[in-house]
């Protein structure tokens, strides 16, 4: 094997490897974590976060505008503090609300943001004033059963009269 041929094949090999990596980077994967200089942090307190996970998406009108950075329990008030990294292109007014939603019936949970109408915008580190927690399926079912049972009792007492 001549020197020039080895150089040629090794060069081709390097190009093919780089092309494979480029294919994996551009076509197969995406960057889901935002760069620090392109994001700002917002905080929201929830009574119950259900099954929300770190790296869960934050959506506004269905568009992904950020990711959950960290979740912790506030030891004073016993509420969950959710830190969110928001895309710096999107700003929200101070009376916007955050709620935990589920995509589909059994899908992953995400935070939905409903924008408000205030002139002043949320700055980095600010907290959402209005939040609503995740719906826990067990509580929903038990509430339904209790109301059904109460309704049933009422029916029977009415029948007794």
């Amino acid at each position, binding site marked *: 094997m001549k020197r020039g041929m080895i150089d040629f094949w*090794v060069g081709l*090999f390097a190009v*093919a490897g780089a092309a*494979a990596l480029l*294919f*994996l980077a551009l076509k*197969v994967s995406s960057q889901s*974590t935002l760069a620090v200089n392109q994001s700002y942090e917002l905080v929201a307190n929830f009574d119950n976060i259900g099954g929300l996970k770190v790296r869960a998406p934050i959506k506004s009108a269905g568009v992904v505008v950020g990711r959950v950075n960290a979740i912790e329990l506030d030891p004073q008030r016993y509420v969950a503090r959710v830190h969110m990294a928001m895309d710096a292109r999107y700003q929200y007014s101070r009376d916007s609300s955050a709620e935990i939603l589920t995509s589909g019936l059994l899908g992953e949970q995400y935070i939905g943001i409903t924008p408000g109408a205030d002139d002043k915008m949320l700055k980095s580190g600010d907290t959402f004033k209005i939040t609503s927690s995740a719906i826990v399926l067990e509580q929903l079912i038990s509430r339904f059963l209790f109301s059904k049972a109460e309704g049933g009792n009422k029916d029977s007492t009415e029948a007794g009269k």
Partner: protein
Amino acid sequence: MVNVLVNLFSRIGAPLTRGIVKLGFACRFFIAILRHSPVSLVRFRLTMREIWFAGVLSVLIIVVSGLFVGMVLALQGYETLVRFGASSSLGVLVALSLVRELGPVVGALLFASRAGSAITAEIGLMKATEQLAAMEMMAVNPVARVVAPRFWGGVISMPLLAAMFSAMGIFGGYLIGVQLLGLDEGSFWSQMQAAVDFRLDVMNGVIKSAFFGVAVSLIAVFEGYDAPPTAEGVSGATTRTVVTSALVILALDFVLTAFMFRGV
């Protein structure tokens, strides 16, 4: 009675101490390679030849295996996913399993059996025919001239080969999923792209394959250098390279996976 006990202990102890001594020698050898690496990186033509030998000649087997592994993954995955009505996430299944695990691991196993065994046999034969001793006589350090370029050639080739394996596997999955089974092309790619994270999945796969490259190359050059200078010794060393590499790759894969993908 005492003799029997002594015999027993020595029979258990001898392989153990031999193994520990060999491991110690391997560590010393690794440091020696690193110390003599600047020469092989400055005279890059030496390493270039080894990249050709270990990398370029392995491309065919890597590409063909990758294609078939991806195609089989798509067929098998479709079988299961279609039962849950989730056949559109076939792309996610194929891409994640290739990028995270199969690309680096199967790529490294193939690399160990294709290139690692060849490196061991080459160095072992050089030792058996006293070429290494002749080099030392001419004041040429065989570690710098023979071993280090082969080591770096393997280390550089491995991540590139693993990336090719993953890319070809995903292409194979695309061929089966979209062209043969008739899944929607748009959802195949977009779901894949939404689920696979570049830093967390692709880069961790590359880091894995770099670790495997170091492990396989080190085992290959070490076994060759350590081989008894006989025909039997070289053949034994070649076998040991493949077996040890396979075990080390799988054990290392477990440790790296536990570090990278725990929890989250």
